[in-house]
Structures are given as structure tokens and as C-alpha cells.
């Protein structure tokens, strides 16, 4: 070995309170390579990179940049050491221009004017060099997600980063946008930059990285050359056992339509049209999967059907029309009509994080006469007993009804929501991002339960940004783009390329 590693971490450990997020991690990243770090949610990938970027301080361990020991105490020192980071959730000021965001923290001098002029020129150069074109005067809130991500990359390059860390960069991108991002990354590699790509998507790792490190439960389990490994091997390294990458299910036997949606339109409080006339139906005993890049109206669709926002159009449930704007358009009325809803963001919507598990198992069903001891008071003892039983059946760990929701892991939180929604035997289950932030073990369990519900003759509307999940669970796939349904396909008659084009708004059949 003659060349020094661009980055070398030695024995990094970090605990958050009683949780050990990183445990004695060592890794070498060679210059001019794309190094992938893969692992499940909560494996400690983001924590490790946040330490490298000076966002957190490690409890123990050393960092070497280009062979010399670096003392990274905060983001400022990391930036000075030539490290740039693109976070999963962009760190941009929404009502600032691109230019203002780029210079923020990297201004030359106390006055803005010269900094802005310099950045304008520099941005132009970078745009040409790396094909990173963005209007420097546009406000961030007016940019698409893909362009916002470019601004983040430009921010790092403007600070002359040689090492670029990207945390789950494709989660919000269409397949086409993701490909474009990968081209940019390859270009950066050609220029000699070192790139660390954090992801949980095996496909991306195989597609673009030179080397890959696998993390599991806060530890680094392996580092291998990408060309010498396979997705199956990586999955096994991530989980620690053999995994089924396919969902085991029989063909569907659909019955009568349960949900019929016609010409659904939603205009939000900012005047943005989130749904532009959506029509679809879901039949008993089938799973309709809605594919699409986040932010193309899928959320609005779930929210309308779940009674969270008003809409215009017609929705029929078991043949009867639903109220979309009036007093009977709230979540209570929806539940009364046999609609259960596992929301996309369980921590934000599906659970009260400070409530105990038992309080959460009646959330949304708190008016159910069965859990009242009399006209005034709720029967808390009965709810607790019922919760304990549910936790048993859904393998929630630890099975303690008194623990607050926030102290369960993502997968166990999702099981609590699922138990609450499924066990009331709904006619229609709305389920958004069922496995986001959920470990692989729980993913299998959740998928299995959803398929069981389908086999019991219930209708299921599934929304997911994970194309793999849509492909493997759905009996029918509808693709959404820009508030519209771009087309419907059967999973066995389509492929990711076709769906990807639809997700980007290109319908070749129609064209």
C-alpha cells in the first residue's frame, strides 16, 4: 500500500444515552473511488457519517484524512478538511435564493455583495464542469427536489470539498433523476473526488460503487469489492441471516369493487393542486399498489381517503358515496365506514409518541362504545388487557403496554399501528410506506400480514416509494405523477424501466 486512504476511521464509538449507535468502527476509503455504506435502518450509518462531518462528537476513535490525523470537532473543521455532506433531509433555507444558500457560512467578508458576485461566477463554472445546472436566483421553495439536491452538491463543491458524503440521496428521486445523479457522481469521481454513498438500496450499491461496507447494529460487518459480491450476499451480511427478497403469495382472486374513486381533485391551503383528477378502484381481495416518486399526489390520495383533508370528486365505498368536504368527511366517519388507515408517517400521524402503547391502540377508535365503562369514562383496564393481547399476536417487543410509543423501534411502532388498524376487520386498508424505517425482520412480518388480509377478502390500497415493495406486493400497479394516474400495469407484465418512465411522467403507450 503506497497511497494513503482519503479517509480512515479507527475504532469509532458513539452512544446516545443508553443506545450504542456505533461500536468500534474502522474503515478505509481510497481516494477517487465511490464507496458504498449499506445497512438497515438504525444500523448506525448516518451516525457514523455525522461524526465524520463533525455533526456529532465520537466517544472514542480517530479520524485520518489523506493520511494525517484530523481533529474534527464541528462542521466547520470538517468543511476545512475538505469534507462535504449532502444530508437525506436537505439543509436549505426555503425562502432564500440558491445563491444565498450556497454562500451561507462560506461568505468572503462581512458584506454580502462581493460574496454573491463571486459565487455567481463560481456556480457558473461548476455548472459547466459537472453539469449541475440550477438558476442561481431561484428560491429554494420553488425548486424541484432533484434541483434542491443539486444545490446541496453545489454547496459542498463551492466549499472545495474533495470528499463528498451522500446520505440516502435517491429516496426522493425518480429513477431517471437518480440515474442523472449517478452520472454526476461518476463525473466527480473522474475529477478525483472521493464519494461515500449511504443507502439501503442494494441495486444502487451494485450499480455505482467500487467498494462497499456493510453495517449491522452499530458494527461494521464487512468491507468488500463490489465486483466480488452479490446482492444476496450483501443482504445476508446486513441482516445476519438468509433473507427472502421476494414476498410469498398466491395469485389474487378479486371480488366486487370496494373503493371507487372518480375524478378526485385536491387543492391545498397554498393553492397548489395536489390531485388533478384521479380515478381508480380497488376490489375485494386485491392489493392495488400506487407507485411514484414522493410528492406526486400519493400522500394527498391517502389523506383524502383517510379523512384528513377535503377534496372534490366522487368516492364510493361499498357502493355508497363518501362525504368529501362536509361534517362526515373526517377520520371518525371513515373508520365508521370500514376504512382503516396506516399512515405514511407513523411518528407524525399514526401514533402519539408520548402516549403509552395502550393509549395508542385505541387512537382513532377512542369513541368505540366497547371501550367505555359508562357514558362518561373510558375503560382503561380493558384497553390495557386488550393491548397486551395484541402485542402478543403481533410480536411487539418489548410487550409492555405501559411503555410510551417513542421507546419502541421503528418496526415495533409499525406493528402497533398495524395491530390497531387490521384487528378491527376493515373492508379497506389504506397503507402508506408500510416498511419505511423498519428492519428487515419486521418487513417480512408486515408484508405477510398485509397479504393475509388480502386473502381474507379485504381491499388494500398500498402506497410506497420503494419500487421493489410495489412490485412484490401488488396485484395491480397504478403509477402516479404530478397528481395524476399515469397508467396501470400488472406486475407480471411490466418492469422497473417501464414503471420508472411512468413515474417520470412519460407514457409511451399514450405518446
Amino acid at each position: 500500500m503506497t497511497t494513503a486512504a482519503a479517509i480512515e476511521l479507527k475504532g469509532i464509538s458513539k452512544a446516545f444515552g443508553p443506545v450504542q449507535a456505533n461500536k468500534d468502527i474502522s474503515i478505509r476509503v481510497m481516494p477517487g473511488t465511490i464507496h458504498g455504506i449499506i445497512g438497515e435502518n438504525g444500523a448506525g450509518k448516518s451516525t457514523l457519517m455525522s461524526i465524520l462531518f463533525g455533526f456529532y462528537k465520537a466517544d472514542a476513535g480517530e479520524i485520518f484524512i489523506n493520511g494525517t490525523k484530523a481533529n474534527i470537532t464541528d462542521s466547520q473543521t470538517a468543511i476545512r478538511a475538505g469534507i462535504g455532506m449532502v444530508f437525506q433531509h436537505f439543509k436549505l433555507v426555503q425562502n432564500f435564493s440558491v445563491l444565498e444558500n450556497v454562500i451561507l457560512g462560506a461568505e468572503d467578508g462581512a458584506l454580502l455583495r462581493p460574496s454573491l458576485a463571486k459565487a455567481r461566477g463560481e456556480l457558473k463554472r461548476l455548472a459547466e464542469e459537472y453539469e449541475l445546472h440550477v438558476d442561481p436566483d431561484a428560491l429554494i421553495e420553488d425548486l424541484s427536489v432533484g434541483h434542491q439536491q443539486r444545490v446541496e452538491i453545489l454547496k459542498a463543491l463551492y466549499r472545495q470539498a474533495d470528499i463528498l458524503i451522500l446520505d440516502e440521496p435517491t429516496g426522493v428521486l425518480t429513477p431517471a433523476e437518480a440515474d442523472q445523479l449517478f452520472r454526476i457522481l461518476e463525473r466527480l469521481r473522474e475529477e478525483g473526488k472521493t464519494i461515500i454513498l449511504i443507502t439501503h438500496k442494494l441495486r444502487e450499491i451494485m450499480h455505482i460503487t467500487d467498494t462497499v461496507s456493510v453495517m449491522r447494529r452499530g458494527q461494521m460487518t464487512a468491507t468488500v469489492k463490489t465486483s466480488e459480491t452479490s446482492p444476496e450476499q450483501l443482504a445476508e451480511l446486513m441482516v445476519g441471516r438468509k433473507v427472502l427478497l421476494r414476498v410469498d403469495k398466491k395469485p389474487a382472486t378479486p371480488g366486487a369493487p370496494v373503493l371507487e374513486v372518480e375524478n378526485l381533485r385536491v387543492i391545498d391551503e397554498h393553492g397548489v393542486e395536489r390531485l388533478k383528477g384521479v380515478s381508480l378502484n380497488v376490489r375485494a381481495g386485491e392489493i392495488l399498489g400506487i407507485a411514484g416518486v414522493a410528492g406526486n399526489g400519493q400522500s394527498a390520495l391517502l389523506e383524502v381517503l383517510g379523512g384528513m383533508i377535503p377534496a372534490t370528486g366522487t368516492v364510493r365505498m361499498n357502493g355508497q358515496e363518501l362525504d368529501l368536504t362536509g361534517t362526515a368527511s373526517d377520520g371518525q366517519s371513515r373508520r365508521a365506514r370500514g376504512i382503516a388507515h396506516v399512515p405514511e408517517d407513523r411518528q407524525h400521524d399514526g401514533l402519539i409518541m408520548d402516549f403509552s402503547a395502550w393509549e395508542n391502540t385505541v387512537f382513532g377508535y377512542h369513541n368505540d362504545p366497547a371501550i367505555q365503562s359508562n357514558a362518561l369514562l373510558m375503560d382503561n383496564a380493558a384497553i390495557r388487557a386488550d393491548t397486551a393481547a395484541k402485542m402478543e399476536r403481533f410480536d411487539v417487543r418489548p410487550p409492555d403496554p405501559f411503555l410510551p410509543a417513542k421507546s419502541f423501534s421503528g418496526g415495533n411502532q409499525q406493528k402497533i399501528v398495524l395491530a390497531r388498524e387490521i384487528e378491527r376487520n376493515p373492508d379497506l386498508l389504506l397503507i402508506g410506506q408500510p416498511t419505511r424505517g423498519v428492519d428487515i425482520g419486521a418487513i417480512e412480518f408486515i408484508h405477510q400480514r398485509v397479504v393475509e388480509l388480502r386473502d381474507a377478502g379485504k381491499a388494500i390500497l398500498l402506497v410506497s416509494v420503494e419500487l421493489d415493495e410495489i412490485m412484490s406486493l401488488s396485484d395491480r400497479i397504478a403509477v402516479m405523477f404530478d397528481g395524476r394516474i399515469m397508467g396501470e400495469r400488472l406486475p407480471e407484465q411490466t418492469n422497473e424501466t417501464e414503471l420508472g418512465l411512468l413515474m417520470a411522467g412519460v407514457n409511451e403507450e399514450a405518446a
Partner: protein
Amino acid sequence: MDFATVLQVLDSTVRLATPLLLACLAGLFSERSGIFDIGLEGKMLAAAFLSAAVAAVTGSVWWGLLAGIGASMFLSVIHGLASITFRGNQLISGVAINFLAAGLTVVIAQDWFDQGGRTPSLGGDARFGPITLPLADTLRDVPVFGPIYHDLISGHTLLVYFALAMVPLTWWLLYRTRFGLRLRAVGENPAAVDTAGVSVIGLRFAAVAICGVLCGIAGAYLATALQAGFVKDMTAGRGYIALAALIFAKWRPWYALSATLLFGFLQAVALRYQNIDLGGFVVPVQFMDALPYILTVIILAGFVGKAIPPRAGGEPYVKER
């Protein structure tokens, strides 16, 4: 109503608007950085007391001003500790600061001066005197412009002119300097500032400190310029009116000037006319007293355009995992 009366009312509008303007700009710096501050009232009160007390003892209004700023800064530091360092509830901290000032000023005033919670009356160099602008006396007899220049524009204390100068200065700081860019950013998205390698805590403390200085000057103005000495609860809700004006102004410097002038005008009118007779219908003085508050409620209700506060306002910054 003759021309002279109009001038008098407007002149008193400027005097009464000055503490509101200073406090409003103070709040602007703090809230633009994401720290809500309902403790403007308490800071002004503490500053009013200490400036009057020190001015009375030393006989120098400048020492008084300095002491007033110091008192206000002390409370600012408490607010900073509570809302920035210890990530406490900013509203509760503000409420506590208002009470602390209301109690401490009287307790200390009683201990020092034994005059029932007042300071001795100030005179001479212990007060800010009026400044006559150049040519004011010469131009006095020029019709219309003369009286306006002499009675309305000239003849205020230094602090009035300082407050007015703070408006363009604040605008320039906010929109034309690095500090302003970072300050606005930290109130909108502190994570963006943090990941850019700039200290969120440092920026917010700086903003809270500026807020302390301006509130200190506002309080000193009350006790050593507008009036001659401190009396119990002399801010009389001005801190809250300044807060109202800040919302009215949508957190912008020039709008802050108009909002505080409007509220100052209302106070001036209420002060001059007790019950206003509008052709048979008498507007009671209590209504005039309540008018700034009623107006604020109407504005808050969004009947006069929507006021959108800084996005990260009121939330302590915690690094995301």
C-alpha cells in the same frame, strides 16, 4: 382642530412611538433568529429602573443609559440560557422575565431609595435633553414647513433620533451583511446554518444580546427622556404593544416604523383627548386605551393580511439524528 394642535399630537406621537420602535426592533432581531421574546416588557422595565437609579445617584444620564442596557442584557442572558442553552420553553421564560423585572425593580427601588418603589426625580444632566437641529429657530417662521421642522422634527432627545436611525441600520444589517444573512437563516432553518459550519448557539445569543441592548435603550428612554425618573410598572404594557407592532410589521424593519408610529399616534390621541365626541356618540377613553390591543387582535385574525413568523421561531434547536 388647528394646525398647531395637529403638530402637537404628531410630536407626542413621535415621543411615544420611540420606546415602541426600539423594543419592536429589539424583538425583530430576537425573533428573526428564532427566539420568541415576550419578555420585552420586563427588559424595558428593568432598564428603566436601573437607568433612572444610576442616573439619580451619579447625576449622569450616560451612566444611567449604560446601567439600563446592563440590566436589560442581564435578563437577555437569562432568556438566552433558558431558550438556547437549556432548550426551555421560550414563552414561559419570557413570562418569568416579566415578573422578575416587575418584582425586582420595586424591591430594589424600595431598598435603595425608600420612596415607595420610585426613584428620585431626575433633572439636569441626569436626563436626556432636547436637541435643537440646525436652523430650527431661524426657519421657525417659514409658513407650514417652519413649524413642522421646528416643532415636529427638531427638539427631540438624542435617543429619538437614534431609534429612527436604527430602522435603516437594521434593514442594512439584515439584508446586506453576512451577519444578517446568517441571522435570517437561523430563524428559518437552523440546521442549514449548523451544517454550514456556523454556530447556531452563537448566532442566537448574538441576536438575543442585540435585543437586550435595544430594550435597554428603550427602557432608559422611558425613565430618563420621556419621563423624569422611574415609577412602578412604568412600561405599562409597552413591551406587549411592541410585540403587537412586530407582528403588524411582519418582522420587517420599515414596517416596524409604520406600525409603532401608528400605535404611538393612538396613545397620543388617547392622552390628549379623554372622551372623544363623534357627533353625539362619545368614544370612551377606555376604548382608546384598548384600541392598540384590539387592532392587534384584528391583525392577528388575518383580516388585514397574514403575518407569517420565522419558520423555526419558538423551537429550540436540537440536532437531528
